[in-house]
């Protein structure tokens, strides 16, 4: 079976060791984590992990089983690209001179819906949110001019269908 990109959403209790437990599940099976993000969720006291991996369809089910088996995991879901609305965010640090020369970059900023976070006499910082392709395209464009620093965040994703966490929590004890 072909590998494909899956976004895994894991709702968990907040616990110091849990990141280690979850990442070990991938490491043990020699699976590379493409991106990992942890944050609070829509529910008080419940954390959310968003993990992107490239695996085969039968493998993703086994991974979810292993994740859900962890004591402090409330529920784990997986979705394909089509089933989610997802964004990544990135920052570029670029020489300020380039901003003024010819106005080419300024035009690109408008076109790509990116945003200048700060400017000073040496450099400016550009922020862009979007999907991986859009960010890659902007990166390739700016790379020709010279990028002083680049960083991209992990993926965050919202699913089109409901993930019934609140109602699930209501059925659980405590």
């Amino acid at each position: 079976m072909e590998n494909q990109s899956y976004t895994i959403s894991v709702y968990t209790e907040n616990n110091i060791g849990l990141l280690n437990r979850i990442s070990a599940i991938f490491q043990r099976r020699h699976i590379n984590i493409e991106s990992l993000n942890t944050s609070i969720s829509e529910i008080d006291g419940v954390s959310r992990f968003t993990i992107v991996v490239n695996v085969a369809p039968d493998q993703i089910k086994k991974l979810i089983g292993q994740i859900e088996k962890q004591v402090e995991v409330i529920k784990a879901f997986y979705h394909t690209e089509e089933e989610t609305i997802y964004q990544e965010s990135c920052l570029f640090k670029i020489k300020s001179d380039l901003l003024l020369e010819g106005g080419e970059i300024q035009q690109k900023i408008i076109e790509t819906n990116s945003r200048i976070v700060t400017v000073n006499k040496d450099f400016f910082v550009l922020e862009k949110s979007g999907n991986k392709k859009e960010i890659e395209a902007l990166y390739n464009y700016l790379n020709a001019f010279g990028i002083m620093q680049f960083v991209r965040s992990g993926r965050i994703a919202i699913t089109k269908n409901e993930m019934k966490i609140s109602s699930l929590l209501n059925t659980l004890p405590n």
Partner: protein
Amino acid sequence: MKNQTQTFVEPIEETQQTTHISGAEAVVKCLLEEGVNLMYGYPGGAIMPVYDALYHYQDQINHVLTRHEQGATHAAQGFARATGKVGVAMATSGPGATNLITGLADAQIDSTPMVCITGQVAEHLLGSDAFQETDIIGISTPVTKWNYQITKASEIPEIMAKAFFLARSGRPGPVLIDITKNAQFEKIDFHYKKCTSVRSYRPKSEVDPVKIEAAATLINQAKKPLIVFGQGVILGQAEAEFKAVIEKTGIPSAWTILGVSAIPSNHPLNVGMVGMHGNYAPNMLTNECDVLIAVGMRFDDRVTGSLDTYAKQAKIIHFEIDPAEIDKNVKTDVAVLGDVKETLAALLSKLNKNSHEAWHSRFKELDTIEHREVIEKDLYPTKEGLTMGEVINAINKETKGDAIIVSDVGQHQMIACRYAKFNQSKSNITSGGLGTMGFALPAAIGAKMGRMDREVIAIIGDGGYQMTIQELGVILHTKTPVKIVVLNNEFLGMVRQWQQLFFDKRYASTDMTNPDFVAIAKGYQIEGKRVCERKDLQGAIAEMIASKDSYFLEVCVEKEDNVFPMIPTGASVSEIRLK
């Protein structure tokens, strides 16, 4: 704040005091609340406050000093496997804690309920590479069901309660609790409440009547059904429910190495062991059955051989408590999630009575072949050297199947599991999933201490015996009457067998130069004997069983015997070799 009047009116409560006690004492009180009266461990700097607290509770908790922390884990495992209760082991930080890892990994893979407690450096020293600081939470994460580091005494009661609940509920497993030294010293008011649930944790699924119905339909329609049962039946205390199901349906039932003893060895529906060194008939017929019913087992690769050719013709039903096991190795047609005690009980009334006589005769045919080709030679050898099989047979004659057999890892383990007879559940204790050499001696000590009413016999190879031989010190110290049989082939036999079969007899680092084992036993004040001739065997075993004290028996066995049948790695179960 104390004032004069209060000191006068306060009742004198010495050991019963629950206010303003140390975290260390709270740990001991938690153990008592959980019904622990026996534990294993080894002291050291970071756990000394708990040891000091234990000193005051010696009349209520028997702490047994093993001679190595690994021994403490295996003893706790042996205790747990023989009694069904949670085993407890304790160690200091650093090397004490890391010495627990093998036992934790063993308990994790064999689903053994165990709570390990480790001392840790004081909270303010965490991360400073302090003396005997190791990141035991990080190290033990992959080999524990749950672990937690306590840094404040106030956390102790709740976390300890959670530890015991998690260790024993659902699919059982090991839990490690690491307690910083400051938390052991801090004072708290002690209140204990048993843990009965954890929000994010579902120990077992509700019985799904639709799945029960689907399973029953498949079973009732089956012409050639085969049951393969594992330790789940024992862990779920579902022996009676399981027996009722097989007796009503008449389905031939085969066991995994950890499932044996869930039904008596002489049960007419017991068709033997599956897997690499299992019996001929159940392995061959796995690839002939029309419905394979797996009960509380996890399709380990040592059971299935090559998955590409495993029971492909059969519909698969899987009764299992752990959702992660469903479709993990073998794709199922009907997965019945839940506690087998409940699912099998629900199944029973839906099943038709049957006896499957023609199908049983296939098992008998193949069994006759195995008897002729393998079993007769193992149990009633005509050659000069002693076989491991005849030793187990001689033990059966004396114990009549009433003993707990604790085996180590290697050829003797396979022979012990194949040939030992069992009348009751929880009688076969061995390291199945991890295959931990050195398991048997300490595990047998734990099993015996947990079941003083039963005969406990450890069967160990000359190699594995020397991995935890220091635990003879526990027998010396506690006078625990464990019986020890070392089957000495002067080789790391199982590895030598593979070298013979798959590496052109290049015996790299498998021959052993062994010490005088009887003299070593004597050094620990254990009566011992060495037997090298057939005429002395039965008498020596009778003498060992008759002994009220611990007894050591070394039997010199044929050096280069092999264990058969055998499914070579990567081969199909139906490619099982008889020689």
